[in-house]
C-alpha cells in the first residue's frame, strides 16, 4: 500500500496548538467543578436541569478534541492508508448528534411542563448554618457555571481560526451556548421567585431551542464535511484554497490549464489536481514538482495527487467514444 506522507503543523502554529490543548484541559477541569456545583444546587427546576445537562454535554467537545489530538497526526498505516485526520470529524458527528437529540428532548419536556401547568416548588436550604431560599443557591451555582465558558469560549476562537480546527470552533460555539444557558436559567429562577411559575419552563424552552439549533448547525457541517463538500472556513464560508491551488498550477510554464477537486479531512485538505500539459516531456518530474507547488499554497493542503489530462471537460487524451452508445454495454 502506498501510504501518505506524514503531516507536520507549521512551526508558527505549534504555539496555537499547545494553547488550544491547554485551553481544553482547563475547560475540562473547570466544567467538572461547575457540573458538581449545579448538580448539588439543582432541585425541581427545569431550567437548572437544562443548564446542568448542557454543562455535561459541554465536556464532549473538549474530550473529543483531546482524544482526536492523539490520533490526528498519527502516520498512515497499511490498514488506514489515508491517515487519521478524519478522527476529528467523526468525534464531532457524535457530539452534534447528542446535542440535537438533547435539545429536542428538553424542548418536549419543558413544553409538557408548561401545558400541564406544573408549578416548580423551590424550598429552602441550609448553607453554612444559614437557612436560605434554594433559588439563591441555584442562581449562584448557575452564575459560577456560566463565567468560565464565557471567558474560555472567547479565548478559543482565535486559535480555532488560525489552526483551521472546526472541532475547536464548535467547542467555542458550545461555550457560548453554555453561558447563555446559565443566564437564561438565572432569569427563570428569578422569575419563579417573583411568582411567575412559568418563567422556569419558558427559560428551559428557550435554552433547548438554542441547544437544538447548535446541534443541527454542527450536524449539517459535519455531514457536509464527511460528504466531501468543498473546503469551508471554520465560520462556514467557502474557502479560497481550491482556487489558489488551481491558480498556482496554471502559473506553471508547462501547464495549459488546471482544475482541482479538493475535500476536507479534519483540519487538512486533500484531493486531486487535473493538469492539461503543453508537453509530456519530463512528465514524472513535472508531476512531482506540481504536487509540491500545490502543497506550498497553504499549510492545510496536505495530499494532492496530480494527474495529466488531455482536456478538462472530456475524458482526457484518449477521446471517449461518442455519447449515445452506453460504454458499459461494450
Amino acid at each position, binding site marked *: 500500500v502506498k501510504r501518505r506522507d506524514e503531516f507536520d503543523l507549521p512551526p508558527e502554529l505549534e504555539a496555537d496548538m499547545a494553547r488550544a490543548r491547554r485551553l481544553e484541559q482547563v475547560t475540562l477541569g473547570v466544567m467538572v467543578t461547575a457540573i458538581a456545583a449545579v448538580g448539588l444546587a439543582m432541585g425541581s427546576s427545569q431550567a437548572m436541569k437544562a443548564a446542568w445537562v448542557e454543562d455535561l454535554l459541554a465536556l464532549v467537545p473538549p474530550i473529543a478534541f483531546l482524544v482526536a489530538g492523539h490520533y490526528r497526526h498519527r502516520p498512515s498505516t497499511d490498514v488506514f492508508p489515508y491517515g487519521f485526520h478524519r478522527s476529528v470529524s467523526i468525534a464531532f458527528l457524535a457530539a452534534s448528534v447528542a446535542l440535537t437529540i438533547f435539545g429536542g428532548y428538553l424542548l418536549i419536556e419543558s413544553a409538557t411542563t408548561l401545558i400541564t401547568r406544573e*408549578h416548580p416548588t*423551590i*424550598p*429552602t436550604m441550609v448553607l453554612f448554618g444559614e437557612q436560605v*431560599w434554594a433559588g439563591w443557591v441555584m442562581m449562584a451555582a448557575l452564575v459560577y457555571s456560566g463565567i468560565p465558558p464565557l471567558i474560555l469560549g472567547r479565548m478559543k476562537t482565535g486559535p480555532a481560526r488560525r489552526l483551521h480546527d472546526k472541532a475547536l470552533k464548535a467547542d467555542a460555539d458550545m461555550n457560548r451556548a453554555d453561558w447563555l444557558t446559565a443566564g437564561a436559567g438565572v432569569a427563570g429562577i428569578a422569575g419563579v421567585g417573583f411568582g411567575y*411559575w412559568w418563567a422556569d419552563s419558558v427559560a428551559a424552552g428557550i435554552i433547548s431551542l438554542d441547544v437544538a439549533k447548535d446541534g443541527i448547525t454542527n450536524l449539517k457541517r459535519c455531514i457536509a464535511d464527511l460528504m466531501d463538500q468543498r473546503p469551508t472556513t471554520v465560520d462556514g464560508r467557502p474557502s479560497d484554497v481550491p482556487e489558489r491551488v488551481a491558480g498556482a498550477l496554471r502559473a506553471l510554464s508547462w501547464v495549459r490549464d488546471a482544475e482541482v477537486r479538493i475535500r476536507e479531512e479534519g483540519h487538512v485538505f486533500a484531493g486531486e489536481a487535473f493538469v492539461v500539459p503543453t508537453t509530456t516531456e519530463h512528465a514524472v518530474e513535472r508531476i512531482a514538482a506540481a504536487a509540491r507547488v500545490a502543497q506550498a499554497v497553504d499549510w492545510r493542503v496536505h495530499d494532492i495527487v496530480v494527474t495529466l489530462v488531455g482536456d478538462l471537460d472530456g475524458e482526457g487524451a484518449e477521446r471517449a467514444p461518442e455519447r449515445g452508445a452506453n460504454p458499459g454495454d461494450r
Partner: protein
Amino acid sequence: VPALVALITLPACERYPRDPRETLAHAAGGVLRVGVTDAPPWIVRTGEVAQGPEADLVLAFAGSIGARVEWRFGAAEDHLAALERFELDVVAAGLRADSPWSKRVGFTRPWQETGDAGRVLAVPPGENATIVALERLIERARAR
C-alpha cells in the same frame, strides 16, 4: 459577587420569593385550611381538632402568620389531590419524605427525622413563599 452575597445573606427579603397563587397572603390574618389524616404518633384526631407534634407545628405556623386553623379530616390521597388543586393550604398526615407525591405538591424539609425517611408537611405546588415560611419555622422548632 458582593451584591450576590448581600442578597443571599439578606434575611429581610420577606416578599421574595413570592407565591404564584398567594397561599401565604390569603392565609395570613385569615384561615389556614389544613388537611389532616390520622397518623399516630405524629397526628391524631381528637374531637374536632388535631393533636400530636405535627399538629403543634401547624398551630405554631398558623400563629406565626396570625391565622386561624381550619382542620379538615379525610383520606391522605384526597387531601393531596385537593392540595394540588390549591383547595387546601397544608396537608398534615405523617407524610414520608420519599412519598411519590413529592413530585406533584411541595414537600417541606423533614420536621422529624425517622429511621427510614423523614416526616414532612405538604404545601401546594410552587407556593414558594409558603414553603420558605414553613421551613423557617421547622428549622427554628428543630433548633430548640
